[in-house]
């Protein structure tokens, strides 16, 4: 017994003592499934970076790669000051917010010579007009995915497909407030970054009108639902359509004519970073041709880098996978209004969140459930009181 305890403690101690020798650690915090990680025969970018550091720079580096599911999760983790990260990859509006709150460090472009490969269209964007804090990683647009066997040809082309009574119970909607309200506001040609209360309330009304037609509010569940044909139409990101099309050839995609969302995810260095130079080295590495192509092929979103878009290997691989790839990821002459999500001020955010909660919670529980449970509780309470009283009477007797 004693020997067992000693053995257990020894094992615990060994687990605790990782090698804290001269190897440097780089803490990277990224979206889930957003880097080529070696699965399904792809390149393992983090391992390649560690090898590159060892061979080219002579440094022993360990990459601590952790993931998050939303910008807000990442923001809360960093804001609470509880952990330090060297490289993070937020979306456009979150970068705007973090710059305003002094949470990002300025980049030293001497260490990022590969920045020249970034396409001019993705420099000087609204959230970082002087490109001091961020380097674009991927970008994309929201569009509508539909199953051509379940949807008639004349109903496509607009956001209204998602409000079409004909497809009641087969429509999916985003399960996060920003994107869901976005679909409603884009469909009436409004400004998704407005502070006008009336616009938000109209959008909430429109979403409420849509609720009886919606099969469910989804994020990643959309892949399965569209792939096995349980839903007919859904809004989602362009690159993810390509992944879904792989499994179900009858899925098709279009950008709605009233306008849609464009987003950019960029690499930044937060102010809590410990290894700024190594972080810049990592960012530079991600911009190099082979790595950027591997990432772009794995994630299947659009790449803002010229050395990827013009690369024949990339174009050949992607077109072999799906012939419409270049038209969907890099549409020319789109002719449709695209708008970025910008950081909303706190009043509008509060309004958006409360409208979203009202939408989700309303009618969630039918009144008969309340009545039945209340009557059951009353029944049980009366039975207990009755038996208690009888017991007291018997004791006194």
């Amino acid at each position, binding site marked *: *017994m004693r020997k067992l305890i000693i053995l*257990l403690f020894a094992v*615990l101690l060994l*687990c*605790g003592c990782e090698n804290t020798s001269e190897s440097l*650690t780089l*803490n990277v*915090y990224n*979206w*889930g*499934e*957003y880097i080529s*990680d*070696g*699965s*399904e025969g792809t390149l*393992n970018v983090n*391992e390649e970076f560690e090898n590159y550091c060892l061979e080219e720079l002579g440094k022993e580096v360990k990459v*601590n*790669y*952790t*993931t*998050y*599911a*939303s910008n807000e999760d990442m923001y809360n983790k960093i804001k*609470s*000051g*509880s*952990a*330090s*990260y060297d490289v993070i990859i937020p979306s456009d509006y979150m970068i705007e917010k973090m710059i305003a709150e002094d949470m990002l460090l300025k980049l030293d472009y001497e260490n990022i010579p590969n920045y020249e490969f970034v396409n001019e269209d993705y420099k000087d964007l609204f959230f970082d007009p002087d490109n001091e804090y961020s380097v674009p990683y991927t970008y994309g647009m929201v569009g509508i995915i539909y199953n051509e066997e379940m949807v008639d040809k004349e109903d496509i082309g607009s956001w209204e497909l998602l409000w079409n009574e004909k497809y009641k119970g087969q429509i999916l909607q985003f399960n996060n407030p920003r994107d869901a309200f976005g679909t409603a506001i884009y469909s009436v040609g409004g400004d998704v970054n407005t502070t006008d209360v009336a616009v938000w309330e109209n959008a909430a009304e429109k979403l409420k009108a849509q609720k009886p037609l919606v099969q469910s509010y989804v*994020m*990643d569940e959309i*892949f*399965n639902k569209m*792939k*096995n*044909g*349980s839903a007919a139409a859904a809004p989602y990101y362009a690159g*993810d359509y390509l*992944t879904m099309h792989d*499994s*179900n050839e009858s899925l098709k995609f279009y950008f709605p004519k009233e306008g849609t969302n464009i987003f950019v995810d960029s690499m930044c260095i937060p102010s809590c970073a*410990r290894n700024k130079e190594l972080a810049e080295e990592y960012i530079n590495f991600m911009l190099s041709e082979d790595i950027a192509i591997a990432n772009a092929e794995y994630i299947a979103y659009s790449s803002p880098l010229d050395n990827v878009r013009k690369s024949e290997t990339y174009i050949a691989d992607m077109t072999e996978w799906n012939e419409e790839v270049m038209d969907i990821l890099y549409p020319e002459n789109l002719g449709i209004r695209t708008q970025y999500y910008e950081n909303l001020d706190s009043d509008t955010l509060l309004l958006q969140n409360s409208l979203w909660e009202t939408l989700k919670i309303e009618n969630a529980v039918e009144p008969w459930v309340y009545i039945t449970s209340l009557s059951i509780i009353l029944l049980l309470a009366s039975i207990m009181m009755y038996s208690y009283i009888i017991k007291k009477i018997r004791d006194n007797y």
Partner: protein
Amino acid sequence: MKTVSKIYVALVFTILYIPILVLMLFSFNSTANTGALTGFSLYWYKELFNSPDTFNALKNTLVLAISASTISTIIGTAAAVGITKFKTRITKSTLLSVTNIPMMNPDIVTGISMMLLFVFIGTILRSEDKLGFGTLLIAHVSFCLPYVILSVRPKILQMNKALPEAAMDLGCTPIQSFFKVELPNIMSGVVSGFILAFTLSLDDFVISYFTTGNDFQTLPLLIYSMTKKEVKPDIYALSTLMIVAVTVLMVLSNISSKEKTADRKAALK
């Protein structure tokens, strides 16, 4: 009436286990489609072994679960023995109510309050990494403790109080009598407390989410971060392997306990 109750039990078991069986079935699917079975293949198992992130998360989760359940079992058993030895009723009932608080607290309250506590202490101590494996371990031990105490205490109450006294009469020191007489009697409670703590720690998401650092990602956190894009079926393969491992362990422990009671009965005869 007997057949009705048998049907009822069968129904309950079906509802409990069908999701697990579907998961195991689709882990052998040759594509990522969860609507149709396209063919038997071990592709996702091979993928699982190729994916360093998933393996890292699994290793982290297991290390955390084993350490947290071991530490909380040791502390919990000692606590249960100590609480039972108190003479005044008020002390005993206060301690028991305090023990119940972490159980009744919603996970999110525990998670956020622990995170605030660790950041506060970290700021005072000027430590670089305020959250990490240590803080995660402390958080897990603290929410596993009440369950261990709750498992061990009934066994202590059931035990014949005369036994340790008899051992001491025969020359044991109190510590020796605890280890040689009391502990074997309450061992089944300790083991079930350990298993309960292990399961809770393995499964926990909310508290881990708030108290982990930048280098320790557990499996639930990894799977949650995949929810914007797809959850790949190598996770199904991983879950199948974990379920099989747990089932094998349970079966083995049941067999060994049956053998022990059979041995004991034979020895008494």
